[in-house]
């Protein structure tokens, strides 16, 4: 079925069960309600990280995802607050807008490789932050606050998407929403990587010259991939804006861009689900170390260094010594 074997299907089943039933159950039993937000964040950041991972897949180090997350957050906020759109429509619009920006910026900069591409995307993050500070439509330094919660959508009287305003607690709703979007993102990513497009990406990652000599239009595929990557970034950013009900120029900045990249490294560049695991460990790990107070950062960074020292190819390289994405 769909080319999955039984083992994979079981794995997916367990995973689905875990995030949709296991986690809420565990939280209910332990009473750690605060983990909902942390895990929601993990899901959203994992969406953006998936985009970064995809650009790694064509051999580009992307430190610009913060820029697209910020663009997504602002587009959604502006559409909801100033234009009056429903959040649910603004969400894909935010992703698409980020993708369009990525296409325009990608045309000139995707020719760059290695550290040069990394650097130019890092600068891009700063450019977008500074632009948000300078533009009137983003409200400059004052940001956009008091963004309403997502309202419901119904078609012919049947509610399709729930109304968050009417809810007692939005935690669970946001958690499920974020998880569903994350699952869709990773399903799409998995499909893409294992389809012909993914194979072409791999050929480009390994040798762009040879790829173009076998007739691959490398600049076109680079743009497509960068646009998809930024679409994911825009989605994640827009969702965050909705949870925080506010967006500021500093909502996503260079540190976020760097973190998105680190999530990919930590999980493992060779594994589709690497960025998801990397995000979980990096983000959730910080929260778990909360009790250490002023030593939190020290312990966090020490663990990070130890992991990379002994598992330089990412966490997932423990289990699958080769080719986990196949």
């Amino acid at each position, binding site marked *: 079925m769909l080319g999955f074997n039984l083992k994979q299907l079981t794995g997916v089943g367990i995973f689905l069960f875990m995030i949709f039933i296991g986690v809420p159950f565990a939280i209910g039993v332990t009473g750690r309600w605060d983990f909902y937000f942390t895990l929601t964040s993990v899901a959203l950041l994992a969406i953006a990280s998936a985009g970064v991972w995809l650009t790694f897949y064509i051999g580009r180090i992307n430190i610009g995802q913060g820029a697209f997350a910020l663009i997504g957050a602002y587009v959604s906020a502006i559409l909801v607050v100033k234009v009056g759109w429903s959040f649910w429509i603004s969400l894909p619009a935010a992703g698409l807008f980020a993708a369009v920006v990525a296409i325009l910026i990608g045309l000139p900069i995707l020719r760059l490789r290695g550290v040069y591409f990394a650097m130019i995307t890092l600068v891009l993050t700063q450019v977008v932050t500074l632009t948000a*500070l300078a533009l009137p439509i983003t409200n400059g*330094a004052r940001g956009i606050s008091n963004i309403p919660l997502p309202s419901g959508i119904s078609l012919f009287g049947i509610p399709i998407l729930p109304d968050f305003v009417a809810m007692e*607690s939005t935690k669970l709703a946001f958690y499920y929403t974020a998880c569903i979007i994350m699952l869709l993102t990773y399903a799409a990513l998995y499909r893409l990587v294992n389809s012909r497009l993914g194979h072409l990406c791999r050929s480009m990652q390994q040798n762009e010259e040879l790829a173009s000599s076998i007739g691959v239009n490398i600049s076109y595929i680079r743009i497509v991939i960068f646009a998809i990557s930024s679409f994911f970034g825009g989605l994640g950013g827009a969702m965050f804006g909705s949870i925080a*009900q506010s967006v500021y120029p500093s909502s996503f900045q260079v540190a976020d861009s760097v973190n998105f990249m680190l999530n990919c490294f930590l999980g493992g560049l060779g594994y589709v689900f690497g960025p998801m695991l990397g995000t979980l460990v990096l983000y959730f790990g910080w929260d778990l170390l909360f009790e250490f107070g002023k030593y939190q950062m020290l312990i966090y960074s020490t663990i990070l260094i130890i992991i990379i020292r002994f598992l330089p190819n990412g966490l997932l390289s423990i289990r699958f010594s080769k080719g986990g994405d196949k």
Partner: protein
Amino acid sequence: MQRRTLMKAALTAITMTALQATTALAENTVLKIGFVGVTSGPAAAWGISNQRSMEARASWINETGGYTIGGTTYDIEIVSFDDQKDPKRAIAGMEKMAQEGIHYVVGPNVDDGAAAVRPVAEANGIMYFPYAFPKSLYQAPASNAVLGMVANYQSGPAIYKYLMDEKGVKTVAFIAANESDPLSQRDGGVEAATALGMEVVSANVTYQVDTTDFTPVLTPVMRSRPDLLVLSGVSPANAPQLIRSARELGFQGVISTETAQDAGVLAEGAGDLANGFISVGGASTPELASPMMNEFVQRYTDMFGEYNDESNTKVYALEYILETLKADPSAITDVDAFQAIMDTFEAPNPYMNGDAKLRYVGMSSFGQKRQVSVPLVVNVYQDGEFKTLFVAEVD
């Protein structure tokens, strides 16, 4: 294989320690007060001075037998969360506070964090005391945020008025870091100065927070020859460098800011060039500091090795929370009761000489009492320490 076992062992050990660390302190009932702010990274100074002043005060209370509210004596425990100046983390921090059953939180330190935690705070019944100035945080329908200090749009006019009257200042130039908080404060300052009839000769110049040389930044400002140079929302790290560059460029006028500064940092970074620099402080200048303030400074210094004058303004939030809870003990778990009593609450200000009062204000700025009334103490730096220039009240 061996490697994996090792890692597993290490992770287990860490998790165990993390779980144990929460076990309680002493025989008194524990009252937890939260702090969500930035205590690592570039802006660590803001949050750390905040957190330390709370911890110094809490340990002082606990050492002297605890704090009695409605017949029960509590030990105060400060639960701190480092949000790394990231609004996403700040939300997680506020969630963590809710998880710990905390209803009173000091922080966050910056505008975006304060705005981001609002939904969580309101949903979970948490009163929080941000050090952020956007009015929308404190105006209805927002209900749970209480401004923990004097806002720049309140202190600015008082300082400008004083300087106009006493020093004959007529023209003013503003300079701010290119970040949300300072830019907002600059805009507020420009508005206030214009309203007072001052001529704003330069207000567009900004600098990146990572600037290491302010001479090129300040040169065009100096060319506009203002009587007063306002460093809007300046961080303690940048203030001495800005002062030094301005003076070295030959600036003769007055330099002021509306944020709190540390005398030691100014002395090290700008030396005598900082003489005459006007900033906003708490009440630790010798003329105003009560014996309790002096003891607080002493205890803080003993605990952390060095005092930070920024903490003067940050000691109040905790005191307000505790005093207000004392006024209505039911507020310990009931934020509505807290909000109800805020309107009438009044208690003596223990940190200041004279008959200053702790009470909530903000009617004229926010339309509801959502600000602590701390004395607006305007300091002037002179030879390594602050002297009180004048004291005003905010309504």
